[in-house]
């Protein structure tokens, strides 16, 4: 009986391992690099995580000689956390008038919704311009660090041209930790 249970356990573990490996294997490692992140550049880093982990991220960049600007403190919200304009759309459906009026008001609300996104993107771009001009930041680094079976990823944006300079999707390995992922991504954007 004990032997049957042991075999069952082993088969289950092997199946679990195969499934996990397959889910990991389905994630592709992709990378593009147009320009290396120059040594001693002024960078602003966006990373959404606990404060102790944020510190690990910042320390990694600092220890590699980059000048890290004090950004990434109060702006790690999601759009919906700040201003959920979707509620306005729901209100628009509640209008009781004839069909033409409803359609027209829905169009108004849809247009407000569209302009909200455009304006949001413009505001971000204006903030980035300010970052560059007032804070002397040359590059914006965006990082999302994930656990095993998920994909960590990053982007590097040149604030002079507003262009994406580097991108990588890095499927996190079983033996990775936050430091090894950071070593890999920083090395990749620096062209090492």
């Amino acid at each position: 009986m004990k032997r049957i249970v042991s075999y069952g356990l082993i088969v289950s573990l092997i199946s679990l391992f195969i499934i996990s490996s397959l889910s990991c294997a389905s994630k592709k490692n992709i990378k593009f690099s147009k320009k290396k992140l120059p040594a001693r550049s002024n960078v602003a880093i966006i990373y959404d995580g606990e404060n102790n982990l944020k510190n690990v991220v910042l320390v990694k960049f600092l220890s590699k000689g980059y000048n890290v600007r004090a950004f990434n403190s109060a702006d790690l919200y999601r759009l919906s956390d700040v201003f959920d304009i979707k509620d306005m759309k729901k209100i628009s459906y509640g209008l009781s008038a004839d069909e033409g009026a409803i359609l027209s008001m829905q169009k108004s609300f849809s247009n407000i919704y569209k302009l909200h996104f455009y304006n949001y993107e413009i505001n971000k771009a204006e903030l980035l311009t300010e970052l560059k001009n007032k804070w002397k930041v040359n590059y914006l680094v965006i990082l999302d660090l994930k656990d095993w079976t998920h994909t960590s990823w990053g982007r590097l944006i040149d604030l002079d041209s507003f262009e994406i300079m580097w991108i990588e999707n890095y499927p996190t390995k079983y033996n990775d930790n936050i430091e090894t992922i950071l070593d890999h991504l920083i090395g990749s954007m620096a062209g090492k």
Partner: protein
Amino acid sequence: MRYLVKISIALLLFLSIPIVDAEAAPTMAFGYLANNSGDDNFDYLETIFPNSFANSLKNIFDINVVKPIGVNKILKKYKMKLEKKYEPFELPELAEKTNADLFIYGNFTPLPDGRIKILLHLYSERSKRLFTFTNVGRMETEIFRLVDRITDILLNFMDTKRFYMTQPIVPSSQIGFFTNLKSEDLNEFYIPFLNSKYRVSSFQANTLGDDIDEDNIQIFKSISTRDNSYDTITDKRKVKFLTGTWTGERYIKDVKAARKLFQKHDLYYQKTKNAVLHRLYKTYKGRMDYLIVVGFNSRHTNAWIRCIDLKNKNLIWMESNITGDITEIALKMIDRMKKGTDKKPDK
């Protein structure tokens, strides 16, 4: 023959008529193509153009066409006459009276150097949507060439892909993408463009992720720009902001605010949006050439596109039903961007 069947089905899909009702051929009514030149010598073209488009489309599709003279005859029963110009909100009534599934009308303006500008409106009664496009090309001595050119645009748009494109988008252009993808999926989408030497702007790439789902991005399907638009028709006459005996100062203030909101975001939306697009263009220091909205379905296997040229703030590319995974969809887009329209542009 297969080609004809295919495009007939495409037309039925465009009209949103279920295939089971396919026995009744759809009706396409034609208004005038008004002469905008101020020169009476061109007046004869006001009916020649629509009649030619009607014949050309009749030869391809299994449809009933009603030419301007026929439309006028029907409208006479209602003590009305076919006008040279219509406001979009007048079209539903016109289509209803003429029993038309589609109504086409527009205007033309002869330009210097033997060129002509044609503006066409194509209204679909089923979807209540109006597709407007402008075509500038040679004023052909053989009118059928010009008719073919416009018919090609209509055919492409009536296809299931709803394809419309005015110009290629060359590599080295800087593009801002607005999509409902995020995180590593967005990176996967960007890579083929970057590898093809397009410059991808930080627009929407500069955050960890926006929460835009499949439903929300649909709102961006309607698009209204200076020369080309694809938009829902609304009737401003039906929008009333009522005031009466018991309305006080505070209520009047609220009503005025609501009316202002409506004017800004419906009646004069194009002006409002142009101001926003101009601000966007300036913020990016004129470096972002195109803004491309790409809406994916929830499984990321099907996408649609709207592209605005930020310099002249015009819709230049529309397409739907692009299938594949994220990378395949990006590669199909790139192929289309490099080729531009199927036809070579007129010189």
